[in-house]
């Protein structure tokens, strides 16, 4: 090995209860998820290779990996997304497998094909699955065929009132009539029954005509206070597919999740059974293996509809790990190495409650990114608190990548205990030098809606209006 590829003093591996699934794994990612994968590898006795851009020379994933390879300059396209560089790093270090983390190359079917062509094990599903689930239309067609409920709607433009009435009857009220050319709420009407539909339909068309010069409209089911519910799936190469229960991810802002929990307070045991079984069915329909997530929108009435499938580990996987006791990342590594799932569906039990807050280096009220140097740092500890981070005091958060500083995860025997622990965790979290969203999270933890569990994906918008009003009132 040349000067380039530094080697750490590697300890005599201790006798392990299980054979390491791989000898050496390269992690094609950065930040907390790269470190998370390194920790899993360490627990399994796998050697690790970190790749890094010049901006991440002093990152913790580099520090704690056994080997490290600089793969390019700061811009992702030239480093973390640069397939030849990543593959070459695996080649020169002799890594047998690549864990992609989330983001970057994790859902890039071409990358998986290159890995395969180079004899490198990609820790995730095969390129066919990734491609199929990455294409919205194809994913929906596959799910439709498999009998997974999709968001009902018209087949394209609805030409007449009569067609509108038939379509609405088919998809069920309330429905939303939307301008095909539209946006911004104009040419949009929500109808609750057939009586008001003809008027609404016509108004929508005229509005659309005025606003966009095109009166074409289509129809979709209108969800009352929808929740984002997703189901964690794991499958092995032998057709075993199990679910690890659901996650509640409705606290989002512009489709960016802020807070996740497991289990969801909106789900009865009966509904859980239905939605999780459906997720397994969906995964089975594409012959899924490794870790994946089926995302659903859940209506107030308990109807749920397939949104998409993520064919990788999720940011919010820790809440599932906390309540099930299953280490999803270690299981990913085992599955990729051809091992069978180490548990059966019957052995998966959701116990207690876990909440995750994503702490971003952003202005807590305006969400403007705030990169910079961390001048003081205290992460909370004590019972029921888990911190997934790659930050340290004196670290610099570069402006180049995403702004996540840490994931704070609180576990309790029930939701109230988890909530109380999250509050005190946020109260004992200290991050100085950059602004973070921690104060926003702290405020949400005290909000009656969040405490009662009565929120939908639309809640954050209302909440931010409240916050804005409060801030204005305070001057």
């Amino acid at each position: 090995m040349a000067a380039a590829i530094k080697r750490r003093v590697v300890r005599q591996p201790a006798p392990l209860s299980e054979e390491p699934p791989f000898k050496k794994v390269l992690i094609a990612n950065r930040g907390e998820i790269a470190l998370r994968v390194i920790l899993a590898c360490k627990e399994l006795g796998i050697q690790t290779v970190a790749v890094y851009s010049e901006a991440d020379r002093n990152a913790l994933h580099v520090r704690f990996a056994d080997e490290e390879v600089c793969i390019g300059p700061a811009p992702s396209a030239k480093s973390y997304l640069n397939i030849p560089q990543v593959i070459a790093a695996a080649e020169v270090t002799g890594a047998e497998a690549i864990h992609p983390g989330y983001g970057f190359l994790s859902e890039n079917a071409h990358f998986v094909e290159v890995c395969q062509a180079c004899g490198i094990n990609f820790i995730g599903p095969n390129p066919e699955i990734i491609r199929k689930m990455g294409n919205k239309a194809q994913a929906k067609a596959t799910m439709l065929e498999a009998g997974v409920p999709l968001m009902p709607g018209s087949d394209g433009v609805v030409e007449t009132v009569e067609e509108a009435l038939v379509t609405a009857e088919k998809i069920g009220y309330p429905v939303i009539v939307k301008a095909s050319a539209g946006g911004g709420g104009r040419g949009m009407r929500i109808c609750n029954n057939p009586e008001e539909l003809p008027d609404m339909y016509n108004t929508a068309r005229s509005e659309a005509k005025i606003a966009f010069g095109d009166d074409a409209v289509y129809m979709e089911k209108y969800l009352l206070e929808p929740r984002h519910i997703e189901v964690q799936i794991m499958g092995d190469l032998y057709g075993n597919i199990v679910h690890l229960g659901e996650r509640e991810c409705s606290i989002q802002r512009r489709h960016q999740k802020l807070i996740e929990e497991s289990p969801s307070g909106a789900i009865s045991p009966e509904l859980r059974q239905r939605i999780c079984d459906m997720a397994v069915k969906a995964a089975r329909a594409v012959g899924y293996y490794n870790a994946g997530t089926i995302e659903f929108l859940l209506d107030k009435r308990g109807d749920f509809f397939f949104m998409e499938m993520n064919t990788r580990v999720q940011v919010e996987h820790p809440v599932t790990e906390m309540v099930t006791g299953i280490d999803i990342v270690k299981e990913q590594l085992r599955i990729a190495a051809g091992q069978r799932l180490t548990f059966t569906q019957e052995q998966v039990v959701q116990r207690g409650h876990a909440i995750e807050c994503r702490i971003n280096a952003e202005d807590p009220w305006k969400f403007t990114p705030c990169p910079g140097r961390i001048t003081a740092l205290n992460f909370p500890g004590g019972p029921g608190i888990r911190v997934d981070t790659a930050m340290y005091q004196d670290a610099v958060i570069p402006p180049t990548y995403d702004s996540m500083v840490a994931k704070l995860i609180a576990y309790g025997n029930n939701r109230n205990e988890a909530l109380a622990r999250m509050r005190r965790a946020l109260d004992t979290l200290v991050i100085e030098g950059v602004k973070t969203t921690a104060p926003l999270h702290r405020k949400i933890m005290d909000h009656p809606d969040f405490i009662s569990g009565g929120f939908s994906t639309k809640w954050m918008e209302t909440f931010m209006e409240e916050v804005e009003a409060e801030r204005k009132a305070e001057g």
Partner: protein
Amino acid sequence: MSTRKKASPSKPSAPASAAPSRRAPSAPKTSSMGLDEIKSLIALVGKEPFQEFEFEAGDMKFRIRKDSIHAPAPQVTYSPAQSATPFGSPVNHLMASAQPAPVQAAPLAAALSPVPLDEPGIHYITSPIVGTFYRSSNPSSPSFVNPGDVVRPGQTLCIVEAMKLMNEIESDISGEIIKVLVENGQPVEYGERLFAARVG
């Protein structure tokens, strides 16, 4: 260009305290100095990047101390894109040197290097890609270049193999190759120094 020296032995977290007083040697004992001379000395010290200045001549003595916070230790600089070294002592790290000599900790290896780092007039040709370094197109061919060779921009210096592709690495300067920094067949990373050349 990457220097590949990752961890400095001292932690640069407190640049202020990391700047011990570096006193200029006291001036020779010339006696009685006029006010103008003192003033000019003071003005000079103000311009120089000193932290402390002590002066003693005959019965006159003065001492200047600049605020270290304004002037962080010169060797530690932060750019927005670069973070601080994570923690000080690289106790767990070893850096295998290019020579077959025993492995050396990074700073020591740097000290032993026969090529002075960042010497004026010395240019390093670095690897634009990750891969395996070869000095010739195949084992039986001669090396593309050897120390002492004068190279022109665009001249092939070596091959870095990645994903079964032989990537020819070309010189970006005119000058004389003075050292080959990587052994044949060894892996190199992005930005790694391959050759040292004297520009001209």
